[in-house]
Structure formats: structure tokens, C-alpha cells
């Protein structure tokens, strides 16, 4: 950079004439392309560098003008050094892609690593630091056995107070959904039953049945997504009869470990118009946090969305361990920035972090897709289902607000550092109307998708990102 002269100080950025977001000094940011490797139990023939390279090649293939020299730098994400056992693995990705000596930063934010990487790239462009930024993420979880992998993941819980009890995230999520079921089924649908044990058993059975609907949805959607790791046709009974992992969470309600990579390329408005006639604009970004330990979560008031009133939740202690305050906070920030007041009506689809079918239902409420306490009814009515797929049970409201049309983490897999970017790529293809081009069939294309949300979630809800993506072109 040349030293700044007096005259350039007066007009520092005129040459660039950046388009700015209303009411903000930030430049408008667009996604122009993306790529994903197929997520798999193991990709022994590709290390993390080559996986990222494959996703990167796919992304660049579609845009002839977007050559490597146009990329100003990168944000590279992976979750666990334990899985990789290669520190500074992000530097090796930068190196392998031939992007040296450009700027790069490694991003790690637990399960929300990919979502945070996407927002870090957003910030690099919005701030004017870069015009074109690569967001790349990966994880190679096949390097250890599944139960050792669970141990690595559980090291993302407090190692003084939480990990030594069992070191098991499924156990933590089971505790959360048990309380969610208690708050929202035991105390409503089963309030008339006086025997406490019996009432709780029945409420949990009902909650499990409804969680199974989510599992069936996501696995069945994935039948039409060639990138998905576990596409399958299931029945509710098959889900419920799968192996018990941590009561009441059975195997088919839980995502698995994966190898995989994903990339998204973000740029400013001028370059977006140059690179593609179907850019997708990022109109909102939000993040939220909460205590690392579940045991420390407060019992307070719900941070309200514009469509909610304090009186809606007069008797609710929030978040406790039943809801994700970080997800609510991230949603509020992202919606406000994007000018969304009623996400139920103003979003066309959501790709959210369903590491567990339980957390998908909890997240419906956090993101305001329905009110707190309505997650089970929202699922049963079919609102988050696709209208053109025949599920093995009635879904009267299908198509109202499809959630995880791609199949989500439960069916696509969850290579942590790639997952949030995978959601960005699937959302991007939805908004471009190009699902058929990339999936080889148009089943999962949400009709007239103008605006979608992606949601990436860490720990027991200790960190969450929400990003809003919108069509940046006129069809």
C-alpha cells in the first residue's frame, strides 16, 4: 500500500465506490460460487488438503472469470486439532491451493466452525479488506474410532466439571431434550396425568415419536441429494426401534462422523456482477453465545422477536437447559440486519444445525419459526416438510417453511469444519434456482426461493451463527 497523501485522505475510497449496506458502513457482500465434497464415513484417498482442493475446483469451474489470482485471501476452518493431529492444518490448505503469500486466518468455533468461517469471510469483504475472499472448511473424523471421536468432541465441554462424567455429547443433548419435553409436553398435553413417572414416560414417548418425524424427513430428503452420506427411506417405527444411545435419543436421531470439505467464495458487489448473473447477497449475519457448562444456564426471560410479547412466556424460565439462548440471540441479530420481522413468513427455507433431531425442534423455536413450546406441533403439522415429497405420514402444512431440504446434518453428515459451509453452498444453489444442476434432479428445489437462513451451532449451544442469504438478481 502506498503511503497516504493529503489528497487521498480527503477521498479515501472513491476509486472503489463500494455499494454499502443501508444504515451501515459495511459494503454489500455476495456469494458467487461454492463447492462440496460428498461427505463420507472415510475418504482414505484424500487428505484434508485434497478434499478442500476438490470442493474449490468445483466452485471455480462454474465461473471462468474467477481465477486464483482474483482471490485476495482466505478464511479456513476446521474444528479439532485432535482429529487432524496436524497443527496449522489451515496453513497447509492455503499452501496446497497455491494462495501464498495472501492473507489467511484459521477459524475454530466448535460445531459452529463452518458458520463462523462464512461470517469471517463476510467480514473480510464487508470491511473492504478484501474484494474476493475464499471460505474453506474441512474435517477428517475417520482418523479415529467412533467412540474415540466422541471423546475428542466431548473435550469441547468443561474438562473440570463435565467431561469426566461420561464425555459424551449425546448424553448432554439427551438431558436437554428431556427437560424440553418436560416443559412443553408433560406440562401441557400430559398435564392431566397425576402419576409423575407415568406422565413423564408418556410425554417422552410422544416427544420421541415427533423427533422421529424429523429424522424421517431429513433422511428422506437426502435421497435426492447426491452429496449426502446417509440418504434413506425410514419409517417412524424404524427410527424408534434403532439402538438406544442415550435415553431418549436413539441412533437414527443423531448425526454421524464424517470426512468432508466445503468452500464458498464471497465478494463485493462489483465483482459479484462480473462473476455471475445469479449472485446471492448476504443480508444478515448474527452470532450468539451462552455458558460453556449447561449447568450454568440462567433461568430468566426470553429475548423477544418482533412477533412475540413478554406475556407469551410469562411462566417460562429461560433458557434453562431446554432452549438455546445463543441461537435466539444470533437469530435476532441476523433478522434485524436483514430487515426480517416475521421469519415464519419472510424466510423461504432454513438449513439448520440438526446434529440431533431434538435440537432441530428446539431450534425451530429459537429461530422463531414457531413460538417456544410449539416445536412439536409445528413438526406434526408438517410445516418444515417439503410439499412434493410423500413422507410415510400426513404432513398437511408441508411446504410452509421447509427446514433442511438438503437432509441436514443427520443425513448429509457432519464433518464439523465443513458443515456450516455446506449449508451455505446448499442455500446458495437453492437461491440460484440451480439445485437440479448440482444435484442432478430438482426434487429438493424450493419453489421461488428468494431468501433463506443458515444456522450453525456449537457445544451445548455455547455458540451459534445465523446468516441470511437472498437472491441478488432479478430472475
Amino acid at each position: 500500500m502506498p503511503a497516504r497523501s493529503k489528497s487521498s485522505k480527503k477521498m479515501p475510497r472513491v476509486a472503489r465506490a463500494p455499494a454499502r449496506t443501508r444504515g451501515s458502513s459495511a459494503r454489500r457482500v455476495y456469494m458467487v460460487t461454492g463447492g462440496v465434497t460428498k461427505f463420507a464415513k472415510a475418504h482414505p484417498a484424500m487428505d484434508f488438503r485434497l478434499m478442500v482442493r476438490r470442493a474449490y475446483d468445483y466452485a471455480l469451474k462454474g465461473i471462468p472469470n474467477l481465477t486464483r489470482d482474483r482471490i485476495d485471501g482466505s478464511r479456513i476452518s476446521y474444528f479439532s486439532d485432535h482429529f487432524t493431529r496436524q497443527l496449522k492444518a489451515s496453513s497447509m490448505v492455503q499452501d496446497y491451493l497455491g494462495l501464498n503469500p495472501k492473507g489467511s486466518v484459521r477459524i475454530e468455533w466448535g460445531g459452529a466452525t463452518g458458520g463462523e468461517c462464512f461470517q469471517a469471510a463476510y467480514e473480510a469483504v464487508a470491511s473492504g479488506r478484501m474484494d474476493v475472499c475464499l471460505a474453506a472448511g474441512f474435517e477428517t473424523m475417520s482418523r479415529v474410532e467412533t467412540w474415540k471421536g466422541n471423546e475428542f468432541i466431548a473435550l469441547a465441554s468443561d474438562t473440570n466439571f463435565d467431561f469426566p462424567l461420561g464425555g459424551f455429547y449425546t448424553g448432554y443433548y439427551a438431558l436437554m431434550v428431556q427437560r424440553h419435553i418436560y416443559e412443553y409436553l408433560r406440562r401441557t398435553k400430559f398435564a392431566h396425568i397425576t402419576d409423575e413417572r407415568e406422565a413423564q414416560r408418556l410425554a417422552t414417548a410422544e416427544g420421541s415419536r415427533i423427533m422421529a418425524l424429523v429424522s424421517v424427513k431429513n433422511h428422506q430428503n437426502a435421497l435426492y441429494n447426491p452429496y449426502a452420506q446417509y440418504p434413506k427411506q425410514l419409517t417412524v417405527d424404524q427410527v424408534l426401534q434403532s439402538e438406544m444411545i442415550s435415553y431418549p435419543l436413539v441412533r437414527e436421531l443423531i448425526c454421524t462422523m464424517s470426512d468432508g470439505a466445503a468452500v464458498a467464495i464471497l465478494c463485493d458487489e462489483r465483482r459479484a456482477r462480473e462473476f455471475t448473473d445469479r449472485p446471492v447477497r448476504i443480508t444478515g449475519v448474527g452470532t450468539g453465545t451462552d455458558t460453556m457448562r449447561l449447568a450454568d444456564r440462567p433461568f430468566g426471560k426470553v429475548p423477544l422477536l418482533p412477533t412475540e410479547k413478554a406475556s407469551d412466556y410469562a411462566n417460562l424460565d429461560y433458557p434453562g437447559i431446554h432452549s438455546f439462548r445463543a441461537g435466539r440471540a444470533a437469530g435476532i441479530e441476523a433478522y434485524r440486519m436483514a430487515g426480517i420481522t416475521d421469519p415464519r413468513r419472510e424466510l423461504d427455507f432454513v438449513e439448520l444445525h440438526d446434529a440431533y433431531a431434538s435440537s432441530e425442534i428446539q431450534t425451530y423455536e429459537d429461530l422463531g419459526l414457531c413460538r417456544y413450546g410449539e416445536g412439536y406441533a409445528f413438526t406434526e403439522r408438517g410445516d418444515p416438510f417439503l410439499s412434493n415429497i410423500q413422507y410415510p405420514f400426513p404432513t398437511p402444512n408441508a411446504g410452509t417453511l421447509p427446514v433442511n431440504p438438503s437432509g441436514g446434518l443427520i443425513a448429509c453428515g457432519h464433518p464439523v469444519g465443513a458443515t456450516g459451509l455446506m449449508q451455505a453452498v446448499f442455500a446458495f444453489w437453492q437461491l440460484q434456482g440451480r439445485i437440479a444442476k448440482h444435484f442432478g434432479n430438482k426434487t429438493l428445489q424450493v419453489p421461488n426461493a428468494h431468501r433463506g437462513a443458515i444456522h450453525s451451532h456449537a457445544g451445548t449451544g455455547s455458540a451459534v451463527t445465523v446468516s441470511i442469504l437472498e437472491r441478488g438478481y432479478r430472475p
Partner: protein
Amino acid sequence: MTTRPPVFSKFREVQEELGRSGRAIYRDANGIDSLIIRYPYSINYIHSYAEDTEFFLALADGKLKGSKCTRKSCRTVYATPRGHCMACGAPTEWIDLPPRGRLHSWTTCHYGSEAFLKETPYNLAMVEFEGADSLLFVRLKDCVESEIYIGMPVEARFDPEPKYSITDVWFVPKRG
């Protein structure tokens, strides 16, 4: 020339061979070979409980310690101790917690991470205490899945041979 490691087309077979000889070749559907080796990785950490020390020393004496905010206008009580108050930021002081409480939530784990697989099935529980604003995460013993419910009265038990871990305390159903 030494013989090459054996070639397998199924990853599961590769894993089995790693258990035997520690080396194998995986051949994928495109005929590409990948050499795969196995190596161990273990560490002894030197871990300080630092500002949480009092809690773990108290467990060895058969006592549960929480912490309480020192600011008069706050006084938030933490069942899992925190050195500083998350509500107002002031330092906290140590307090005694009652050795009994109620279940706020629970689960039975039929699997766990590798280090805990041999202990399955085990129960995890969140316990709420009279007068405390937050919870304590513990193991729940001496009961089976069908007996446990949210709201169940429970009481603490302590390991007479402390390991200086959170597992030095566990809870059991309060009898009678």
C-alpha cells in the same frame, strides 16, 4: 525388497488389518491406492484446578461447595462454582451447598466416549438445590431408568477414596 502391506477394498477390512499389523493399503473404486498406517498417541497432562480447587478438595472431605456473588445487590448462588459472577461480574465467595436436591433432568447413557465405554450404562443428571440459582451436573447411581423422573429427590454420596475428579461425588435417590 520387502513385501508391500496387504490391499483391501473395504475400509472396515483396512481397520481390521491395522489392528493386526498396523499397516494396510486401501484401494478405492477408481483403483487408487492409499497407504494407511496406525500409530498410538497418549499424553499425561499436568492439570491445575486453579480457582476451582476448593470445590475438589471439599469433595474429598465429603462436602459440596458452591459459590455466591459478593455484591450485596446481586448475591447470585452458583451450585457449580464460578470464581466470578456471570450476572454482575463481581468476585464470588465459597458457600456450603446442601447435600440433597431434586433432579432437574436426567438421561441413561448406553454408550459414551471411549474412556467411559466400560462404565455403560450410566446415568447423568442435572441437580437443582434449594436456594441455588444454577445446577450441578453429576452421575446418578443406585437406580435404574424406569425409576427416575424429573423432580425426584436425590442426595449426595462421596467417594471415600477421592480421585480429585467431579466423579468423587454422585447422587442417589433419597430414600424414605
